[in-house]
């Protein structure tokens, strides 16, 4: 249905060609500052440590200067996660604690910051000792205390139905030697399943594609082949190349099982993001799973595959 509405929007855009747009100053809305949690815990092939970012929301009318970016990150919070066996306190790890080098660069990239441009320290919270039991079927209760405020959440790592084959084929329509379409095979279980996936983007970073989540209502319990699109972070959208892989590249596919709350978050997050600019979608309130704040505490059961893009004969 999203796709359908999108195409209807294309039709409508023909009409906008005769119209125009101008900047609009909406009435001032008093916005209370909220803490924004972004934290993930992975099992399976997932290699990321369990970590948490705490930032603050920015009032609509504020302009965020580059030098203020680091001020969004909240330091001094107490973070703990209960995995049902033990409660593990996370370590606050600030960039200034790390020596210059590849690890620091990786973390900066994950946070989306330019180390040369920031003047304030940025901190994240990590299960540094990897003390949590990370496995499918387990739930994880998060508690974050920031001064007098307590934020809580729960997530689970569901059982993953793994992709069991990968084939690169000619793209549909007129063949292009340098482009390929990726097809995967899956045997979906009889349970209610939710999936999210990432691929390398043009810069080699694992990135979620345009619509990165799905449930299995349309294919529950079936085994079938389906295409996966390559994530595209570039600003130039080209309908003739969108979603296709470049022959000869080595790409990583990250295929994950997530729970329903985690699915709801990304489903509403992406719908809200992609719906901007369409006259036919109202507002969408992102369905988050943080009590006392906003954000996502999500579990992933991960399958990682590194593939060389070679078209099958």
């Amino acid at each position, binding site marked *: *249905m999203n796709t359908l509405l999108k195409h209807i929007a294309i039709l409508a855009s023909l009409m906008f060609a005769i119209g*125009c747009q101008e900047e*609009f100053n909406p*009435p001032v809305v008093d916005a209370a500052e909220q803490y924004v949690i972004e934290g993930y815990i992975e099992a399976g092939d997932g290699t990321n440590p369990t970590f948490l970012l705490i930032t603050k929301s920015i009032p609509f009318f504020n302009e*965020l200067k*580059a030098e203020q970016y680091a001020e969004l990150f909240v330091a001094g919070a107490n973070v703990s996660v209960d995995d049902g066996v033990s409660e593990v306190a996370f370590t606050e790890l600030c960039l200034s604690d790390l020596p210059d080098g590849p690890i620091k660069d990786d973390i900066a990239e994950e946070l989306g910051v330019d180390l040369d441009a920031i003047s304030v320290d940025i901190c994240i919270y990590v299960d540094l000792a990897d003390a949590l039991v990370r496995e499918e079927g387990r739930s994880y209760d998060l508690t974050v205390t920031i001064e007098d405020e307590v934020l809580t959440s729960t997530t689970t790592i569901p059982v993953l139905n793994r992709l069991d084959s990968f084939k690169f084929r000619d793209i549909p329509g007129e063949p292009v030697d340098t482009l390929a379409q990726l097809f995967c095979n899956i045997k979906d279980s009889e349970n209610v399943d939710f999936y999210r996936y990432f691929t390398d983007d043009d810069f080699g970073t694992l990135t979620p594609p345009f619509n990165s989540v799905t449930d299995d209502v349309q294919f529950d319990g079936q085994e079938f082949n389906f295409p996966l699109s390559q994530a595209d972070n570039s600003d130039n959208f080209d*309908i003739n190349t969108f979603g296709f892989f470049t022959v000869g590249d080595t790409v990583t596919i990250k295929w994950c099982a997530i729970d329903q709350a985690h699915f709801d978050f990304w489903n509403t997050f992406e719908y809200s993001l992609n719906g901007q600019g369409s006259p*036919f979608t109202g507002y*969408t309130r992102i369905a988050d799973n943080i009590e006392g704040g906003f*954000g996502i505490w999500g579990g992933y059961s991960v399958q990682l595959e590194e593939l060389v893009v070679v078209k099958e004969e």
Partner: protein
Amino acid sequence: MYKVFSILAVLVFSLSLQAQETYTLSGYIKDAVSGETLIAANIYDTNNPQVGASSNVYGYYSLTLPEGNYRFTASYLGFADQSFDVVLDKNVKLNIEMAEGVMMQEVTISATEQEQDKNVESTQMGTVELQVAKIKKLPALLGEVDILKAMQLLPGVLSSGEGNSGFYVRGGGPDQNLVLLDEAVVYNTGHLLGFFSVFNADAIKNTTLIKGGMPAYYGGRLSSVVDVQMREGNDKKYEAEGGIGLISSRLTFEGPIIKEKCSFIISGRRTYALDLAQPALKGGDFEGTNYYFYDLNAKINYRISDKDRLYLSGYFGRDVLDFNQPKRDFFFRLPYGNRTATLRWNHLFNDKLFFNMSAIYNDYELEFDGGQADFVFNLFSGVRDYNLKFDFDYFPNPKHNIKYGVNYTYHKLTPNTTSATNGETNFSSPFLPKYGQEVAIYVQDDIKFSPKFSMNVGLRYSIFSQIGPYTSKLTGEEFGNYEFVKTYDGLEPRMSMKYSLDNTLSVKGAVTFTNQYIHLASNSSSTLPTDLWVPSTEIVAPQRAVQYAAGIFKNFKDNNYESSIEVYYKDLQNQIDYTDSQVPTLSSEDEDQFVYGIGRAYGAEFFLRKNYGDFTGWIGYTLSKTERSFTDIEDGRWYPAVYDRRHDLSIVANWSFAPKWELGGAFVYGTGRFFTAAESFVFVENKLNILYGPRNSSQLPAYHRMDLSLTYTPKQDKEKKFKSSWNFSVYNLYNRKNPFFIYYDPEVSETSTSLSAYSVTIFPIIPSVTWNFKWNQD
């Protein structure tokens, strides 16, 4: 049910007894030129104008009076009055043919001051009849004459968006309007995302809007009725008319099959804007991409005898979007539209008892077929009704006009059902159509207690059952075909009354209870073809409403000016909306994403209209407030509905300033629409996204616009069979940039990040020209 019929029978019998010493004047009132029957024309005793009757929707009237010599007058807006003498010493059948402002032989043109005026005299309130001839003289967007947009210029009726034919009435939602075309329900009234209505004005005879004081004859919706009657076709001679406009052309052909006994009309319209663009698309990325819509209206009627008539009418309309990207082997085709068919049989049991049976079919379907390479996808949704109605009009004496009847509807509502094929794998959605049946029985009487006091009182009883096949979501119980799953019912009392303070001044009041068993929820700012109708089920309860209205009605200057002030309060129960986090999906049914709440709407409407002369028009102003409260939306906080508009003003004028020239103008002003504004933004996964403030807590700037039209009609030679005229229209004359929608866009640079809001205007100043023509047989 049996008791109700018994009471009806006794009532009818007792009224018949009262009328034993009287005789009946009855017949049809028609247009002298075309033979079209005239709806709601008046006939009354010239010497005692309080004694009279109106023609029904088939043009039939019946007036029973004591024996005597009478002089009667027949009147109809825009037509010359006719007076004639009748000796009523037996039952008299008299078909009256009226002409537009032309003196007829053997009749007297009566002065307009003797015409009874419905504005003051009728018990109905909140009711407006729109004549297509008048609508055609109003300015129109891209020259497309649109009865629904003309309706939006009336007080109490709001547009659902810039240039949109969707509408809201007195704080009711878009699904709470009962839109009928020859009695068939039209579920989606818009072409091209609602920018044009499905009604081709050339095929329409009459449109009645009822926004308050809904008679018991109508039911199934909470807020309003738009009753559109198709023309029957000229029964005297062949005629053709049409027009060529910027985006579409239309052609209507009508005439007698058997002169003054059987006639037909067929009318078509099609757009061609993108057809003309096809050469430009050839060889490009989107070769073969096209969009168009078309309508086809047809009607045939046959007078079997003086007592029996048959009418068969139908409508077929489709919007078709073809999207092709041959280079990538990608395509989809999206057709959607309505179909209606109505078969009616009129029968006169006697001069006082008029019977109509209608068998009606209507559907609205949306289909999507698309694919790429081995992947093929199909989506279908729709609503389909089979409807059987039995209606009686009983005219026992001038003090009573009784209507009663029964109505059965079988509903089939198909949610988004999908199927897909990917190579050798097939997918299909697990959701099945839902079925329901709706029965309504009603009786109403328009009672004239005295020349000053009259009342329309009615009672409607409706019952709706969800029926199988169905598997309960609550209990898992399986229901077979036609097996009852859940039943709802309700009594719907209706009452409106009028007290005349003098011949030109009256006060009126009305109370209307309504139930609605079929619903549509939409989270977009305008109605879309993808919006789904859903029935009441074990999960979704019926919507219910009660409306109280009161008004004062005054005519001036020999009825040339009519005015009214109406106030209303509407209480709405079981209102339906989506959760704030709703995402359109094929993975769950709409009803699983509904939330339920209550609503209230109140307001005052001011209306002043000039009916006759070279200069005609009206001013309508509405002061209103509409709110909703849902337990699951912000803990039940009352918030303004998206169609809450504090001030709404329309000024409409027509001026015949020269024999060949006519100027039309419209000015509209409305308080800005409520919307949910961004409150703050956040970064997650390095993406900037928006957190929104309370629902509908911000307002867009005020909406206003002026349109003008100029119609040039060359001097018509009466001997010529072919006549034509030119219409020049300018939409949004002073190029007001009214926002169609607002969107947010992050501004990210090396030095800063911020969120900006943009207002998009889609209809700047738009001139258009339409050439209209008419041909008729001698």
